């Protein structure tokens, strides 16, 4: 088992109080597993991804444990975390378009980064070139400045860089949402290939697009209001979703071929809970058609089938 997250709680400090962006998240990731992380905007996806690599100034590790290959990741202790970053845990940020220093040649930046981390650049160079070719880039991009590359190219450079040291865990946050459909497919497939070639052991792919997750992930986690609602193998999520939220989400997705006249879809009324002061109990309660008394208590994230966890009292 690569990653084990237990009851992780991460809050944002604000003047009006703590935003409980992660409020007890528990899951595990197997070797070689690509887990998709989906959910509405503001549900805490990015926060979860960041927590595993680097908490920014406003984030506070409030509770919970993260283990990587059985060793604890000191996520709340930035200096100690530094050792793990890049080598063990790595990230492709949501803002990959602007993630490269605009005034440095890409190659120079990589070299300086490696040197600063005490890694010989010379030895890594052939591997770097190989991986760039693998994602369809010529190693010449290393002599270019970020602005000279298109969005998709930058995305792929960041992908290669983040995985250069073969980390055990990669968090890929919305890596495709700024890309065109055709590029999106290419990048997404490249992620899978990276896993297949062992550049990364396991991966969390954050996205708000369930259908994309379905294409590349082995398992899918659906997040709602700072907690996981459901985690299941990809096929299971689509074929047999257990959580009402997941179901509603899937029902709101028009598929090619589905037309308004033929089948009128509908969204989920209401809006996600305020994480500054979240309601007690099941967070989806307010929008859930099945909700009843029972739901005022927080449902456990229980395994209802092998590898299928759901946080819902009503999940059969």
């Amino acid at each position, binding site marked *: 088992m690569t990653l084990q997250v237990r009851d992780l709680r991460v809050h944002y400090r604000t003047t009006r109080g703590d935003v409980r962006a992660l409020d007890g998240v528990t899951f595990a990731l197997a070797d070689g597993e690509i887990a998709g992380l989906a959910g509405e905007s503001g549900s805490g996806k990015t926060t979860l991804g960041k927590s595993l690599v680097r908490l920014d100034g406003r984030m506070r590790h409030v509770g919970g444990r993260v283990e990587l290959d059985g060793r604890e990741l000191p996520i709340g202790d930035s200096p100690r975390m530094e050792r793990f970053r890049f080598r063990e845990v*790595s990230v492709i940020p949501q803002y990959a378009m602007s993630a490269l220093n605009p005034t440095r040649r890409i190659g120079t930046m990589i070299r300086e980064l490696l040197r600063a*981390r005490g890694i010989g650049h010379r030895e890594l160079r052939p591997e770097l070139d190989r991986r760039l070719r693998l994602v369809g880039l010529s190693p010449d991009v290393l002599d270019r400045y970020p602005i000279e590359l298109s969005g998709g190219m930058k995305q792929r450079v960041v992908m290669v860089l983040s995985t250069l040291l073969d980390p055990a865990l990669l968090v890929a946050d919305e890596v495709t949402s700024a890309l065109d459909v055709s590029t999106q497919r290419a990048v997404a497939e490249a992620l899978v290939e990276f896993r297949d070639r062992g550049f990364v052991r396991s991966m969390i792919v954050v996205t708000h697009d369930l259908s994309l997750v379905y294409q590349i992930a082995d398992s899918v986690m659906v997040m709602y209001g700072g907690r996981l609602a459901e985690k299941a193998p990809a096929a299971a999520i689509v074929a047999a979703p257990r959580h009402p939220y997941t179901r509603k989400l899937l029902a709101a997705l028009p598929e090619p071929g589905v037309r308004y006249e033929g089948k009128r879809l509908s969204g989920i009324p209401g809006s996600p809970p305020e994480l500054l002061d979240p309601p007690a109990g099941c967070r989806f309660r307010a929008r859930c058609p099945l909700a009843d008394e029972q739901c005022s208590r927080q449902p456990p994230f229980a395994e209802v089938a092998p590898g299928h966890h759901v946080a819902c009292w009503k999940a059969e």
Partner: protein
Amino acid sequence: MWRYFGRKLLIYLLTLFAAVTVNWMIPRFMPGDPVQSRLARASLQSPEASAAMEEYYRSVFGLDLPVWQQYLNFWGGLLRGDLGISMWLFPQPVTGILAGAVPYSLALLVPAILLSWYAGNKLGALAARGRWLDNTVLPVGYLLTAMPYMWLALLLAWSLGIVADLFPVAGAYGFGLQPSWTWTFAASLLAHWFLPFLSLFLVALGGWAIGMRNLIIYELESDYANYLESLGAPRRLVRRYAFRNAMLPQLTGLAVQLGTIVAGSLLTEIVFAYPGIGYLILQAIRNQDFFLLQGAFLFIVIGVLIANFVVDLVYVLVDPRVRVQMQGGAA
């Protein structure tokens, strides 16, 4: 690339043209007749002598020509490097007078601008690093920028010059010296240069420090800095990048600021009786010396323009974004 510079050059030339024209116009439409005041100064005994001289001077200065012709002549002279004859320091040519003053002004301005810029940026970057430094550097920086140039100059002159008697407070070198390649002379030059330089340097320093501090805070929060840190890059590297990137807007700031600093140097020169352009400008105005005024002005304008142009060039060299944009032409 060349098209980009061609375009820039065109804009600069247009700006130069406009600035020179404005420059030509300003003194010309000043009230008062410089020839009259010359005559008044001459205290000639008889009206007949006045009349003859008036005519004479009008023709010497070309003021008897129609205005458009004066304008054309002005350009003609300019292109030949002839800025006319000074009225105040008659009959010296303006170019000669300027040539005497420019070295002093440059000696003040160039080091003051460059050093304050460099030191200010370093200081600002330092301030962005720590709370304690931030709390000392910032307020001092603000006080320095808020100081009128001449007041700081006065304080320095009074405290270091008059009370402590450490530095001379007037002139460019000792009265007793002849310009020569000796240590004594060099020491005297330096001693006289120091206070005016210091006052310019200090006022400008604060501004740069504050600017850098703010910029670097933004840079440190930018996406690439976050990404680098996520990859475990040490703070040192991130700071270096942030500093470098923050230097870019500061560089443009330098171009924008030049005019202000030059203006400040005028005041400083006046306080320290430093024989540069500032003093000439003041006297030229007082004595209605069109030609000298125009010349001094032109020198500043062209200087600022050239400096701007250099900044543009340097900018292109150091900021790949601009370079790429202009290679891409349209994009």
